């Protein structure tokens, strides 16, 4: 089975959505404009780039906004259940994974509430994947 690494964005880099039609996340100016409004850089970018260059192509890496619970919640529940978690344990695991700036491998929450340095993230993920 292909492994999946999920990096949950922090509060600052998650792009706003749900503003609705005529108010959602829009970027009228991307290049060349004097007011190029890109989200500020945070630790997610560095972690993602380090993981992508270190891990083989068959390992899927996703960056998810913490507001995207519609995708994140089932992903965490599936991952937890695959590991045999049930009841309170599963609930704790899911809650940890939903936290901002989390690092998750196949539903296993390695880090929550703050991403490690890129090199540490690669080590952590590599160690977890080696167990499979």
């Amino acid at each position, binding site marked *: 089975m292909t492994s999946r690494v999920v990096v949950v964005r922090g509060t600052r880099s998650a792009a706003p959505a749900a*503003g609705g039609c005529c*108010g*959602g996340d829009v970027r009228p100016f991307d290049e060349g404009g004097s*007011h190029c409004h890109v989200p500020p850089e945070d630790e997610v970018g560095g972690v993602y780039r380090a993981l*992508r260059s270190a891990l083989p192509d068959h390992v899927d890496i996703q*960056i998810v906004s913490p507001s995207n619970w519609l*995708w994140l919640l089932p992903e965490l529940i599936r991952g937890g259940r695959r590991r045999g978690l049930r009841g309170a344990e599963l609930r704790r695991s899911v809650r940890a994974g*939903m936290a901002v700036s989390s690092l998750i491998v196949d539903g296993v929450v390695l880090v929550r509430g703050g991403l490690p340095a890129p090199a540490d993230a690669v080590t952590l993920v590599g160690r977890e994947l080696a167990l499979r």
Partner: protein
Amino acid sequence: MPAFVVGAVVGILFFLGYRYYSRYLARKVYALDPAFVTPAHQFNDGVDFVPTNKHVLFGHHFTSVAGAAPIVGPAIAVFWGWGPALAWIVLGTIFAAGVHDFGSLAVSVRHKARSIGTLAGDVINGRARFLFLAIIFFLLTLVNAVFAVVIGNLFVAQPGAVIPIVAEIPLAIGIGVYIYRTRSSALLPSLVGVLVLYALILVGNAVPVSLDGLAEALGFEQTRNLWVVLLFAYTWIASRIPVWVLLQPRDYINSHQLFIALGVIALGVIVGMSRIQAPVVNDVPEGAPSFFPFLFITIACGAISGFHALVSSGTSSKQLDKETDGRYIGYMGAVGEGSLATGAVLATTAGVAATQADWEALYPDFATASGGATGNFVNGVAQFANNLAVPLDIAAVFAAVVVISFAATTMDTGVRLQRYVVQEIGELTGIRVLARNLTLATTVAVVIPLAMALLPGGGEAGYTFGVLWQLFGTTNQLTAGLALSVIAVWVTRRGKNPTAVLVPLVFLLVVTTWALILNLRNFVDAGQWVLAPLDAIVFILAVWLVVEAALALRSAFRERGTAVPAEGGSGAGEESVVARANPDHGESTSGSTEGPAGRAGR
């Protein structure tokens, strides 16, 4: 006619549209290639450019495009009967919005994921970028003006919504700060936020807040106008607060509300077995605007909305994992918005009235219909919620809270975006103080729509709102027209058949210019000296767009007759980064500006 049956038929048509028409677009018109290296891979920086699972991306895309606008337009447009309104929503979604949203994504992906404003300059010509800026300026002005009026009207009609909506601001800030400090999950606090918000509905319903006395004391002609002033004062402050403090946590709450509202409409229709009480085609009174062309500009979002091109080319195209995912994200996003618009039609034709006579009393003329449209939607959804055993008065406040939450967030973002546009215009015109002074730029972004919301009309509130809304719809359609022009030129240059793009483009340009001419005559006759010049300016922009689109298409057809050019207008055959990255696919892009590749190395 049972509302459930109508909803089911629309659902089937949307399914068929997605299944067959979007497949045709993907294969024959946009010629998607699953092996194409998307900008998300090429410029992968983990910040803007990230290859993203299509279901993850759809969640973000859909919540970015679905909101209050596809509710208000259909709620007004059922004035002409539910048949024409629903027909335009269905046909518009399948043959116009789907083509537009999907196409914006496809063309952006083939041009380094640039936004449609930049692409207009690259693919058409340099003038088109200024045209885009001008259209967007008026669009944002009208968005902010109409939504201020919508909220003001709802606060007057549903004073029980005031306390929950006002309390939502500190609630959202509290959630934002809590998540930031504890770095915990956004789901639980935002769910608690929704529960607190809905608990406050009980408080609001028990203690309705009316500003009638204050408005009278301050000399306001209508209480709504006082609300409008307060709303713009709020957005002046809110648009300067960091996104994560207020806007983002409010988005979390709104994303829950979107699904709750859709669920209430669907379940309420099924459980209550509500029947549509409005006529299929309404015999409108003499002097009322005719359904052609006005229906097609009254329903913009929900049938086709130019704003979606900004979302498709602004954020979604930078995260597309495979080019072929664009079909699901772009086309299904349009279908999702069409579904919300269908829900609005059902609420205002089946939920809001028990008999046809009741319905006709709500839609006797265009002024009453447009002024009361959002209130009718609120009452219709309240009836659906009542079918699910929620008390009617509480349900009405609930529905008002949902609509106001969306509209207020749209205003927050709209004023913020308008500030960027004002700064950009200041830069282009050399007015440096406008470009650099945040306070001045924000004030300009607030004062112009405030004037738009307050000045015209002078009495007949409903009429004023209806025509303001139509001007908004027209400008939104022009934005869509500009995006479709870019898509049509790109498709033609690639040697593909552009008919699927040209048909909605020509239709949109005809209905918008026609409606602008008719409205201009009406405004001049009625002495509406605020609306008439605005209409005239938008008309000039529309004519400009027609000329630019025609010239660009003529040039594209000529190029097609000679040789296959480099994609994009200004590339002059220069091999682009994308072309070099895709030697097997023969695709190239153009553009004199530096690509985002530099950011990948940050």
